[in-house]
């Protein structure tokens, strides 16, 4: 009995959390957001979906042909995602490993051209804008390389938010 009540409270708290995040992007105050924001909202709720995951999820919750997502579809679907922990975070160690794979010569850093090649050509490529932002923000000013351990620190800094 107590357990049931507790999980009810849990769900209610989850719902509020999801709604809060959703409403940050609800510019018209009518419980809809643009489909483009779904990825951002999912990330902000602690999930780590790939682009394909996001696309799949959006297809399920989005309104056809309108480019918007309603809260009443989003809320139950997202609650499920969170309860199932469907897109768990990638541990920091794996992230470090990933960089080491790309850093073929094990230099401890990557040159901008190297990083660009991987980020923009492989897997789920970055747009030019994303690439520019990454390079501007994280290339070391003096030696013009990306020290990926530092980058990892930044990326994993607000884990608990």
């Amino acid at each position: 009995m107590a357990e049931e009540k507790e999980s009810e409270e849990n769900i209610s708290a989850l719902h509020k959390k999801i709604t809060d995040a959703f409403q940050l992007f609800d510019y018209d105050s009518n419980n809809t957001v643009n489909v483009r924001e779904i990825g951002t909202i999912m990330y902000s709720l602690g999930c780590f979906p790939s682009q394909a995951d996001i696309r799949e999820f959006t297809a399920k919750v989005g309104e056809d042909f309108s480019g918007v997502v309603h809260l009443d579809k989003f809320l139950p679907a997202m609650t499920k995602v969170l309860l199932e922990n469907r897109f768990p975070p990638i541990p920091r160690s794996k992230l470090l490993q990933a960089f080491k794979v790309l850093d073929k010569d094990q230099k401890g850093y990557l040159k901008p051209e190297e990083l660009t090649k991987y980020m923009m050509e492989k897997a789920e490529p970055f747009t030019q804008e994303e690439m520019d932002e990454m390079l501007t923000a994280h290339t070391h000013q003096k030696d013009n390389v990306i020290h990926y351990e530092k980058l990892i620190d930044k990326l994993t800094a607000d884990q608990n938010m």
Partner: protein
Amino acid sequence: MGCFRANHTSIKAAVLIQRWYRRYMARLEIRRRYTWNIFQSIEYAGEQDQLQVSLFFSLRLLFHILCPADLISQLLDPVIDPWLDRETCYKTISIPESYTGPRISFPLSVSDTNALLRAFKEQQVLHARYVLQLLYETKKLLKQMPNVVHLSTSYTKEITICGDLHGRLDDLLLIFYKNGLPSAETPYIFNGDFVDRGKKSIEVVILLFAFLLLYPDHMHLNRGNHEDHIMNLRYGFTKEVMQKYKTHGREILQLFQDVFSLLPIATIIDAKILIVHGGVSDQTDLELLSSIERHKVKSALRFPRRSLEQLDIGQSHRLGKRLRSTDGSRPSSSRSIYESHRTPNSGASTSSSSSSSSSCSSLCSPRTPSCISPQTYPSSPSSPYNVLQVPFLDSLSSVPLPSPPQQELEWKQIVDILWSDPKTQEGCSPNTFRGGGCYFGPDVTRRLLHQHGLQLLIRSHECKQEGYEICHNGQVITIFSASNYYEEGSNRGAYIKLGKELIPRFYQYQVSRTTRRLTLTQRVCAAEGSALRALKEKLFAHRSELMTGFQQYDPNATGCVSVGEWAKVLASVLRLDLPWRTLRPHLVHLAPDGSVEYQSCFEDVGTGAHLPQVAPNLAKTLFRYRTDIEIIFNIIDKDHSGLISIEEFRHTWRLFSAHLGVAIDDRAIDELARSIDFNKDGSIDFTEFLEAFRVGNIKRAG
């Protein structure tokens, strides 16, 4: 084989990194969004306070509750030196040999405007004589202009339209640099809000007026809601003038007041595009707007005097209650001009009266002040159909209106144009956020544009992250020209260029202090820090009510409440619509069991330098209502000297505390007055006094 595997591994690696990075960027975007929300909520909450105070002042004082009859006009109307013709007083001012600032001569020529540009870039100050002369000439010119200015693109290449500048000289100079100085080839429209908030309002407005005088056919200025002397009292322009012009500030402010009220209200291009500062309402009537005497509306914050004399105010709460009980229905939106912003959607406003008593009780023990007991006012026989709900601080004054006389209709026309905001919902409702003007929906826009054969409404008044925004199915454009409005990196500025084909093109920019382009990360961090500091100040200023709220959920005094309860208390006390759960990590600590240690809200906030000895009741009130008190002091301090007499101080305090129902006896006030009369000369430097009650100096946590 090995090659393939290596490739496959690196693809997997790349996916991982991309996912992490996108998540990081999403987090940044979230922070940017709520930072933006914080700034906007606090900004509008502040503006509403301003309106409430002025209305309170106008209504209360006018009806002899505590003051003699003419005090309101004495206070808010200009001091006229009878032996000096205000208009030409500049002639008596001579310019000393030692003056190294720009010298200009009238009629202005291009060399004069160039001199001004050069001088302001070098931080020079224009001599008061020139300022007054410039204002006098501007006033003469504006008097000849209609309320609605009609322009045509057939003789020009393109018109440039700029939005709010708010005293940002750098933005104005950047626009001139990118787009060219005003001229026959480069005509401009500036859509209001030239002053307040920014530190260089005087320079901005002098340049605009100078170009106006130089090219009256190619330079066009619309009035904004900040071209208003009462707004200026609160938002910095008055202070800036008094600081830069110690001797002649008063006369300068007086002329500004005249000039502002003479600015045209609207511009129409090619009979197709309407440009106004705020927006429109469902009552906007362009014909009526063209015909009224616009200069009579000196400030949106003063009701036309005649209609107020006909108003009947009894004891506000009692009357309000009586009205509410006989007619539970909400007055129709087109009649009531202001409604309590607490209960925008509810019917009978009983919730506001209860919230008023709870807020009051958290400050001190409320009691009906004897000075507010109802005089023998004739009770209003009119039905509560036309009711004015005037919010002030925590209570609601209900005032029945007779059918609106012409003056009031005209006042409303102008206020709607200067203060309204577009919304996505259809219909038109009072703008409870700002306290003036309306929220107008796409149907209102459609109808108005159709009625007058127009195709587009261009307005400003709201800060937009990209400097501009299009809404109402492309029929409304918001254009905002003050970049970094809230904080370095908060938003871009923009301007519109419009050619004969009347298709708007947008140009964006951002003034930056450093030459190196700031990354999104850096911009977000700076803006976020500033927003959170402002929010923490708000929390501190409402400390006692918040604690009361928390304690209600914590009967066993454990010091903790759940996250949900914490969020609920904040939302209801601060009345700011913010994502509290998302902000929680920045504002408060969690106990090991996941509940909120609510005291930690106030941990890293300190107050200013040592406080003068003040009764606890007084202190709480001072923190909470510091801005309102400052506005009242500023209004009383007619010569803007920063000093008021002890008698005026006592008087103001009595006024204030009476309305709040705060039990503060005269002795406490006297003691306070004496203690802050540092020079013992019978006058009080209220700025210095109030500084002590500013919630600032937030110590950096950890």
